[in-house]
């Protein structure tokens, strides 16, 4: 069974998003952490190259923000929400296999400071995403 953590939200294009706890309470800018799902990394198979966005770049919801290349092909990774790129995970550039090994943890890709908090709540729940994955398998 493919791992779909219930505490995350998802996009149709197989990205996950996590609102970082704590930051909001401290009154700082909220950050949305982004990666690809276990289903996505399994479909892509062995990832050999990751290109991340520049910090500070503004992206729109649904805009291609990163590129992942596997032995199969190259794929765009889309921003789940609009905002500015706050941080990127340099570790996956050096070791792309982290995305395969730990896609919800050390294999995260980038974090966005969202410009419209409402967009986050429009993303798919783990249940809705799970249904989508199952529908595609048939």
């Amino acid at each position, binding site marked *: 069974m493919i791992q779909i953590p219930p505490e995350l939200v998802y996009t149709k294009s197989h990205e996950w998003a996590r609102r970082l706890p704590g930051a909001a309470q401290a009154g700082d800018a909220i950050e949305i952490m982004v990666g690809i799902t276990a289903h996505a990394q399994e479909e892509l198979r*062995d990832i050999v190259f990751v290109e991340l966005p520049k910090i500070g770049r503004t992206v729109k919801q649904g805009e291609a923000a990163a590129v992942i290349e596997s*032995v*199969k092909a190259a794929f765009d990774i889309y921003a789940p929400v609009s905002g500015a790129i706050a941080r990127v995970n340099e570790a996956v550039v050096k070791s792309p296999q982290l995305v395969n090994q730990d896609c919800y943890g050390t294999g995260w890709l980038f974090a966005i400071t969202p410009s419209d908090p409402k967009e986050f709540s429009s993303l798919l729940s783990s249940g809705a995403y799970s249904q989508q994955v199952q529908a595609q398998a048939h």
Partner: protein
Amino acid sequence: MAEPLIFERSVPGRRGYLLPPSDVPGFRADDIVPSDRLRTEPPPLPEIAEFDAIRHYTRLSQQNFSVDTHFYPLGSCTMKYNPKLNERIAALPGFAFLHPFQPAAQVQGMLALLYELEQLLCAITGMHAFTLQPAAGAQGELTGLKIIAAYHRRKGRRRSTILIPDSAHGTNPASAALSGFQVVQLVSGRDGLIDLNELKEKLTKDVAALMLTNPNTLGLFEREIKTIAAVLHEQDALIYMDGANMNALLGIARPGEMGVDLLQLNLHKTFSTPHGGGGPGAGPVGVVKRLEDFLPVPRVRKVGKRFRWEERSRASIGRVHGFYGNVGVLVRAYAYIRALGREGLMRANQAAIINANYLKAKLQPIFPVPFDDHCMHEFVVTLKALKTHGVTAGDVAKRLLDYGFYAPTVYFPLIVDEALMIEPTETESKETLDEFADALLAIEQEAKTKPDLVRQAPQRMIVERLDEVKAAREPNLRWKAGTFLFSPEGSTQRK
């Protein structure tokens, strides 16, 4: 047995030739080259006899798959046979021994050929004018995009978006991005064709052009092409056609009559000139009349009965290649078109379409075609069902090598899961198509009963399954003195 690198065949002191003593005054290298730019040691070149070099490269060439040795159903690449007559014609001294700096007056025959080839390509595509300069399909795309940018600039506006369907060739978005455009993807409809509503929704005032491949990479003809062109033209956006799949239209349909404004042709696909390593390629670009002024210079002009180069044009995007492109390839394409004629091109095209549909019908009971319709020159099947056996499209492709067939395009287009994209071309016989279909059906059985055999394929090749992941993550591209891929004793070391 695997062939060692030529460096591994090297023996100190061994030579191919002994040169006679020089009878002209010599000079010292440091008299003409700054000393800090000079090597302190000789480069580590292989030291071998002439026949060692000949045997080495002949053996390597024999280990290749090629159109001359194997069926090569590489979808969207149109690997058709290269008639040997073309080679003979291109080797005629009057073509082969020309120098690009010869004045036009001395090369009237070649200029006449180039001029006529442009006219023939215009007649085939319904375009108004052609440049033969671009050296490949992707360079043709780049040339086309520069013309699109120049067109809008002349109209005094800046447009930065190019629309590209998700069924287009992968080079299209790459060329658009390289030209400084923003790419917006059009999601295909359920029938695998452009969805008019999706097009209208994404057609903003910023759209410079739509780049589409027709027939698309699913091998499907865009039936609504005229409406699509009209929708774009309403906003004075242009329509660029990637002509890499022109083998499906030759002699039957002309893009100029579909509303296409400009396109590139891949002579190394559609017009039977050598492909890939056998190249070089050629990607001529054709345009409608209102875009003619932007074509690259120089252009061949006919004045009376004579031909000359036109070097300047105010609106031209400039040169895109030295001299006039890969002229030797152009000669081969000209020979092909003249040998077949209009009737012959049409019949070749019909055979390509019939071959693809025949193969599709044979495979379809086992391998589903997700966007199913009568196909044009190629079709895409999905091997999704083999996933339950742990076998992928890539595994099946490698197993096909064991059966003596070059593998079709895999994992493309991306909108089909575990895709295998098959293009047989017109030159293959029914017997070859049957053998290929039988091989695929046999592999499907193997995948169910002996999946490891398929997962570890190829088994019968000189080099077995390579570690693609390691090759991509830690590429080892240069030979270093003292290192051996194969041990000096000749036994292979596998890593």
